[in-house]
């Protein structure tokens, strides 16, 4: 009986001391975490467990030269994301081959670094697709953080803040420009209009300046950036979806077609009534004149 109690205690202790991420994966977990305990590694296991790649073994990406210690492999020798993602089409906006083409044509590859990689912007350990985020504001914030990581970088938090302010001030052409900076995804305007890609980053001189691209019918916010939310809200909220879409309001983009048709119909009736009344007055006046 005492032996059984000791065994249960030992088993409970073993479970207690196994890191959560390892415990969840059981036998399939490679031995990496035996050395890279949370306290020793730069990867946050909790954040990693929420990422889109959480089900993968470390060696799925850390391939050549990472299976033995000391590691002979280098980052440069690791496969590129597209090696796995090629041919994957998740949605019209997430077609990985098109994304790769977009990146190749972007200002990042053409003018910054020919070897610009997905991981320059997207953390493979923590990446969560926008469709799995709570709402568009979180998706926007995460996406913008990627851009600001370089474009508003500073050695200290204060320097980063100054860099951000300098960057933000370049957007003064917008009415309520501070709000636009906070509430808008950089890629909404800094990618080609009319195309669903958000990876073909344009030079700043070619950035979209037509407000109606967002503030208009078929707003690119619904057709390019947050398509999953547009579909979800339409399913959940039915005809009022256009008012609550994206949990925001955009003049011109967020209209309710039933309200619009009702008001247009009402305007038509008023104009028709006025025209009929005026015509009636005219005809009666003629009739009365003839009679007299």
């Amino acid at each position, binding site marked *: 009986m005492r032996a059984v109690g000791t065994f249960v205690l030992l088993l409970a202790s073993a479970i207690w001391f196994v890191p959560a991420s390892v415990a969840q994966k059981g036998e399939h977990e490679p031995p990496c975490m035996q050395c890279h305990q949370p306290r020793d590694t730069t990867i946050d296991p909790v954040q990693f467990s929420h990422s889109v790649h959480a089900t993968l073994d470390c060696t799925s990406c850390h391939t050549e030269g990472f299976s033995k210690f000391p590691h002979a492999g280098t980052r440069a020798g690791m496969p590129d994301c597209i090696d796995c993602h090629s041919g994957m089409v998740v949605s019209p906006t997430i077609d990985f081959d098109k994304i790769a083409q977009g990146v190749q044509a972007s200002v990042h590859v053409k003018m910054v670094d020919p070897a610009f990689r997905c991981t320059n912007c997207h953390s493979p350990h923590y990446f969560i697709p926008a469709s799995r985020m709570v709402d568009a504001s979180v998706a926007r914030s995460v996406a913008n953080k990627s851009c600001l990581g370089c474009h508003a970088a500073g050695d200290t938090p204060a320097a980063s803040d100054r860099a951000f302010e300098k960057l933000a001030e370049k957007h003064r052409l917008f009415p309520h420009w501070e709000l636009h900076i906070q509430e808008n995804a950089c890629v909404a305007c800094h990618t080609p209009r009319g195309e669903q890609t958000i990876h073909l980053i344009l030079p700043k001189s070619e950035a979209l300046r037509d407000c109606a691209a967002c503030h208009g019918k078929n707003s690119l916010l619904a057709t390019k950036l947050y398509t999953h939310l547009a579909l979800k809200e339409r399913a959940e909220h039915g005809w009022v979806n256009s008012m*609550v879409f994206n949990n925001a309001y955009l003049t011109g983009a967020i209209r309710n077609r039933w309200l619009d048709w009702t008001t247009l119909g009402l305007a038509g009736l008023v*104009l028709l009534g006025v025209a009929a009344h005026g015509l*009636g007055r005219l005809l009666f006046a003629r009739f009365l004149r003839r009679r007299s």
Partner: protein
Amino acid sequence: MRRELGGYPLWLRVWHWGNAVLFVILLITGLSMHYSRPGPALGFRTDVLIHNTAGALLTLFYCLFLYGNLRLGNGRYYRIVAGDIEPGLLWQTRYYLWGIFVGSPHPYPHSEERKFNPLQKMFYLAVMYLLFPILAVTGWALLFPGRLPEAMFGVPGIGLWALAHTYIGYFVSLFMVIHVYLGTTGSTPGALFRFMWSGDTGRPEPAPTVPRPGLGDRPGDHDAVPVTTTKEHI
């Protein structure tokens, strides 16, 4: 002398036409924003700037209107008096639906004491003291979108304010269409427009009156109503 016949003072005419021009600008730019489509760069932004400026000016004009009503005596024309509701609304409606066609005398002709007929008064009260203030408050609020509540009644706060602003603006626009049309119901189609422009009724002397018992319940209005064949009410 003609001013005493019920003409409009200069401040009122400036307010009226300024109001009209600003409202048309607001309507055009408002519709342009509401139905905006991708087009010339910064077209939407221009609409926004014009709309905001015209809106702010219209608020100033509204202050002039309030001042004129409170201090310059114009407010008395908006006061509902006995007989306005019953039988005023009925009589005026009947006039617009039938009397106006057959040349009946106007039941409430223009005078120094009464510039608005009962129906007109009700509409003006609703538009100027209810709808317009809502339009102005929501319009100003939308100039500071960052300070509006994030959510109200389960929908985005800014959306609710914008919705009220847009559709109340729409109803006031419809009122304006009717208002302009009724402007053609003077002795000639252009008479009332000229009157509103010059402030001059164009009448050389007060209209004669004939007894007409029961027209209204306001003392002094019971038995003497000006007879006119003009339909000079907007």
